[in-house]
């Protein structure tokens, strides 16, 4: 078995596992679980599944490595930080102590 065949198989395997991650993580969106639980599942699908797919593509199209690496890097960072932003925005607004400008202000 040559090197090309090995990388072909590995690439198919990575793409397949990535697809499994995607479906596993996207399915909970249709269920009635809590918002945070959906975000946990989405971090599996979006971040980790997509990263596996990009690795699979990297094995398949090695001459495009600069763009694929950039995609991998951006995907990891953006997905993770978007997950954090969505989770944080879902929280009721809380005022950090010591930072309020006007302590006499009535809480709404």
């Amino acid at each position, binding site marked *: 078995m040559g090197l090309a065949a090995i990388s072909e198989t590995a690439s198919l395997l990575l793409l397949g596992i990535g697809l499994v*991650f995607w479906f*596993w993580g996207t399915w909970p969106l249709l269920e009635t679980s*809590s918002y*945070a*639980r959906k*975000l*946990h*599942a989405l*971090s*599996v699908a979006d*971040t*980790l599944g997509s990263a596996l797919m990009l690795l699979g593509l990297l094995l398949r199209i090695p001459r495009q490595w*600069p*763009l694929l*690496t*950039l995609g991998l*890097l951006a995907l*990891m*960072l953006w997905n*993770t*930080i978007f*997950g*954090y932003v969505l*989770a*944080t925005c879902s*929280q009721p607004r*809380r005022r*950090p*102590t*010591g930072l309020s400008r006007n302590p006499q202000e009535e809480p709404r």
Partner: protein
Amino acid sequence: MRRLLPLLLSTSFRLLLWCLLTADLSRLNLLIGVAVALALPRARSRPLPLRELLRALWLSLVAVPRAYGEALRLMVASDLEERMVREPVTDRTIPLLMFLDVFRITLTPFTIALGLEPDGQHYRVHALLPRRQTLRPPAEETP
């Protein structure tokens, strides 16, 4: 050196992105990349503590394989429980370190950072974990 570190870091990171984007390492392209990296606005930052930075980078890197381990455990687990936990902040005054903290916590599927506790020293972290095996019988549920 510590004062130069933020400048050096942001410039080299931008240059790296430029090189990946253009896929061209000719001298002229590198020059343009350096010019762009220097011309883009920069956030003012306190001098970076090198040791803490390296530690945070290392922890973020290690979080990637850990994330895959947690993803697999999450997928095979049948019974999951949600909990709020606290995680200490590395250094609140340095944005890059806080960014790496939040990245490390949120990347792993078991935990998502939700912001700071009111004390400012801990992150509020939402955790989704496979339920721990407890020996005591489950509490009676009221109908």
